[in-house]
């Protein structure tokens, strides 16, 4: 059996990356919209595909936000009149199974999440894998892409107006 070891081409601090992912999750869970948006790079993609590895050019996604649309999403949430998040859902997510690799200057992380949403007397479970593409920015990171692969993306899903 051959074990392939990924050799990082740049020095990476796994703990700092994990802390960044936890912070992003906390800002989303707590509806801290400005803080969450500030984690993103100037060029960005926020993607929730439907199905296994679809081509977004030919297959519809639940979310396929470029940076401008991501900004619209945040602006809409901040009006206080986005009914599907007014009142806001109660959210907490656990992140685990973090794997990290580097591709040139880019850091790619894959992690699993379980998110519980409390909405109008119901607890809704969301689960999947998040893939982040991160760039170093000073002592911190910026997200250039986040792909959220829901385990049930092929099935009917409830309102997803919060930040996943």
């Amino acid at each position, binding site marked *: 059996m051959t074990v392939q070891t990924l050799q990082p081409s740049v020095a990476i601090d796994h703990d700092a990356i994990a802390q960044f992912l936890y912070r992003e999750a906390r800002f989303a869970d707590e509806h801290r919209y400005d803080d969450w948006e500030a984690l993103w790079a100037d060029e960005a993609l926020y993607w*929730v595909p*439907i*199905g296994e590895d*679809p081509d977004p*050019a*030919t*297959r*519809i*996604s*639940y*979310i*396929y936000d470029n940076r401008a*649309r991501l900004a*619209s*999403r945040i*602006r*809409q*949430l*901040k*009006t*206080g*009149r*986005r*009914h*599907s998040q007014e009142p806001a859902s109660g959210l907490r997510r656990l992140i685990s199974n973090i794997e990290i690799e580097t591709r040139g200057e880019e850091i790619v992380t894959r992690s699993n999440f379980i998110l519980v949403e409390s909405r*109008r007397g119901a607890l809704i479970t969301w689960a999947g894998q998040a893939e982040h593409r991160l760039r170093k920015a000073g002592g911190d990171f910026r997200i250039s892409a986040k792909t959220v692969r829901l385990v049930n993306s*092929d*099935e*009917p*899903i*409830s*309102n*997803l*107006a919060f930040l996943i």
Partner: protein
Amino acid sequence: MNAPLSATPRPIAYPSLVEDQRIHGSVYTDPAIFADEIDRIFSRGWVFLAHESEIPNPGDFVTRKLGLQSVIVTRDAAGGFHSLYNRCPHRGAVVCQAEAGHRRSLTCPYHGWTFAMDGALMGVPAPGAYEGLSAQPAGLAPIARLDSYGGFIFGSLGADGPNLTTHLGKAVEWIDQLCGLSPTGRIRLSAGWMKHKMRCNWKMIVENQVDGYHAPMVHGSLLAANETFASVRDRKDSSPTRVHDVGLGHTDIDHATDYRTTPDRLFRWTGGVPEAKLPNYVAAMRESYGEADARRRLIDGPPHSMLFPNISLAEMNIMVIQPISPTETIHYSTPVLLEGAEEMNARTMRRCEGALGPAGFLIADDAEIAELNQLGVANLEPEWILLNRGLASEVVDAEGVRTAGLMDETSQRGFWRHYRDVMSAVGGA
């Protein structure tokens, strides 16, 4: 009083629940009424199943719901369309679990009976012991009727009743209008479907889909956050936009009546994309239809219509409203891609994602309000829903088409008038 605390008297007298200007709340909650709808509207009536472009090649299939029934819609080796109950004639297992795919044949996972894409039984494992026995059912059971218009395939579980053309009535004009935005006259629904779970009765989504009154309130957040959305249409009560009830439960919001007030501007229906950004599309439309007719099509844009009972030609999207139970609905949506206009299609995909589905800037809020509607009608008083807005100013033409202003409830009344006819008719739809 509303169900479920007190059952509606049986047999259900629909004219006493569905009046011309008001609707009794129990029609959104009563399980017996839901069962009646599945029988009369979603089994014996015509229901959209799939678009031909979803199964373009022999061997392609999709599985769909017709009412509460799972059916497989297939294309056979000769290119013909079939719709088959998803049930093995041997011991009853679901034959096809996949939502879509391409196969030479369908094989039951239980004992391996194998069927051609037209449903015919091709073979069974170890057939010897069947010799000499009376004939088995020959294959997968076809539904009673299948027909299509403009590539839209419809099915019915009932052998009798009006044909598809009669069912569609004037709604064929909207299908023509939509397909006529393609230089070849053909659309593709090949991008897959968003599936949105909503905790409401299906009729609330139908009513809302052609409601011109709710946008300032329900979509106020987007009006505030998105300048294009706010400015591309006249959404005021004084808007030139008309709503129509064209009969047989088919209704629309006719945005072209607004767009035609600015005949120098094409493409307001795209969210105001400048003509200069779509030169190949414009050229192809001129080539196909001539300058004047191409221009008319590109000013008017697509329909915003609701076809009875549950498919909406929602501008550059198709929506299907699938009842699950009295209080659960799945809302399917897919973008309309135009053959011969690839320049448009990427924009259409991204607009569909922005507006529709569970994360959409529009439909997530419609779903939320529909859920509040459902919770609200479970409260017992007052018992009636009011649908009388604009009744006094409604205009009826010689063909019976009713026209009113953007915010009037003419479209909802049109749906309910036909609903009452279907639910009251001897023998159903």
